[in-house]
């Protein structure tokens, strides 16, 4: 009979690493999404070009390759990252590129009349963006940001390839040591699903809170 308590502990350790990666990766992705998304709407060609290059590059190459670059190639350029740093960097930049298009699309979808009201009230470009456009666009971004964040959570499994002891990595360790496949893989299946559900629930409550008052019913 196998004593599972130690192995369950291993898997829960892995869950912590996965959560850490998801939170930090999402934070970086969010920052990159706004920088690149706003960059694509810039008046300046160079800024637009830079933002577009970033988005196209990270959407157009595989997350595996990006991760290998962050972990195995960057040291040749004199930058050595821990597996966690490399994982956060690759996941954050990758998902941030998708998020940038969400930011841009949401901003673009705010009606022309809101911009015109800003001009008539003599608000500057940044003031309009900060106080009028972004607060309305943010609400439109939330559902897709939730999706992106769940994608990122599931994508964290790739870091097991650079020997980071995340959920998937630990499950494989447990499987190798116990010879049991069903239990560790069922456990991580449930944990991934629970984490994804948590993100979805969090995003929905945030959305509800932000939408308050906009429809004239709830205040």
């Amino acid at each position: 009979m196998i004593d599972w308590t130690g192995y369950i502990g291993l898997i829960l350790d892995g869950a912590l690493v996965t959560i850490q990666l998801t939170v930090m990766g999402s934070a970086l992705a969010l920052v990159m999404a706004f920088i690149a998304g706003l960059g694509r709407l810039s008046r300046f060609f160079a800024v637009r070009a830079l933002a577009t290059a970033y988005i196209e590059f990270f959407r157009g190459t595989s997350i595996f390759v990006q991760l290998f670059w962050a972990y195995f190639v960057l040291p040749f350029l004199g930058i050595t990252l821990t597996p966690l740093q490399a994982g956060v960097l690759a996941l954050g930049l990758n998902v941030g590129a998708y998020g940038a298009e969400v930011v841009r699309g949401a901003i673009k979808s705010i009606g022309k009349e809101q911009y015109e009201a800003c001009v008539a009230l003599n608000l500057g470009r940044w003031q309009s963006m900060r106080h009028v456009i972004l607060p309305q666009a943010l609400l439109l971004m939330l559902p897709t940001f939730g999706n992106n964040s769940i994608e990122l959570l599931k994508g964290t499994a790739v870091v097991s390839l650079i020997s980071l002891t995340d959920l998937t990595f630990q499950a494989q360790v447990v499987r190798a040591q116990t010879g049991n496949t069903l239990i560790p893989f069922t456990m991580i299946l449930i944990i991934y699903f629970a984490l994804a559900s948590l993100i979805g629930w969090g995003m929905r409550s945030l959305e509800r809170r932000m939408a308050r008052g906009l429809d004239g019913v709830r205040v």
Partner: protein
Amino acid sequence: MVAPIIKIDAIAKSFGNFKVLDGLSMEVKPAEKLALIGPSGSGKTTILRILMTLERIDGGHIEIDGEQLYHMEKNGGLVPADERHLTRMRQKIGMVFQLFNLFPHKSVIDNVTLAPMLTKGTPRAEAEKRAMELLDMVGLAEKAKAMPAQLSGGQKQRVAIARALALSPKIMLFDEVTSALDPELVEEVMNVMKRLAAETDMTMLLVTHEMGFAHEFADRVLFFDGGKIVEEGKPDDIFSNPKQERTQSFLKKIIAAGHRV
């Protein structure tokens, strides 16, 4: 002879191949209340949008309060205005839109205080005091905390008027401000504007299809067709005794369509 506060000199504006304005010139005296009437596509709304810098002109000059709107003086000549110049000029002008364009994520009072706080650095307490005075004037003081979505169309438009007034512009532009309203709500917006017209020395330009409103509101009525001023004069003359054939047929059509004169 008072210097005009708005002096439009031979401006041209096209949308694609469609020439909306072609060499239009007109002047507006300070404190004058002007109504611009005419069929759709006659260029009257375009004039307001150009004055608010929402559309750029293709040619000509506009002088506001003695200063060029779209040009700056440089080395004795005129060069196209930069954003800073436009920002300074916009302080003189406010606009109310057909579809109100309130900020849906901000409460009524925040809609009114936002621009003074951001563009003039007015402290919040002062901006809110002024906003409450303005909301009181348009009869909506008790709605200060409400969100725009909770208001009727007429109430939204009155908030939009208060919001534009909060910046104390010298010139106010009203672009078909009652066209999007249910008939029973038109009256409340008109009453606010008529009172405003009577009480202030702001210069006001009104684009409208409500001839009765134009009659009561304006000192002078301009009838536009095809981007040109076909006829202008005192409201009594234009509405009771139009001289141009095109003005007559337009007014006839408007009356047939059930609008009040």
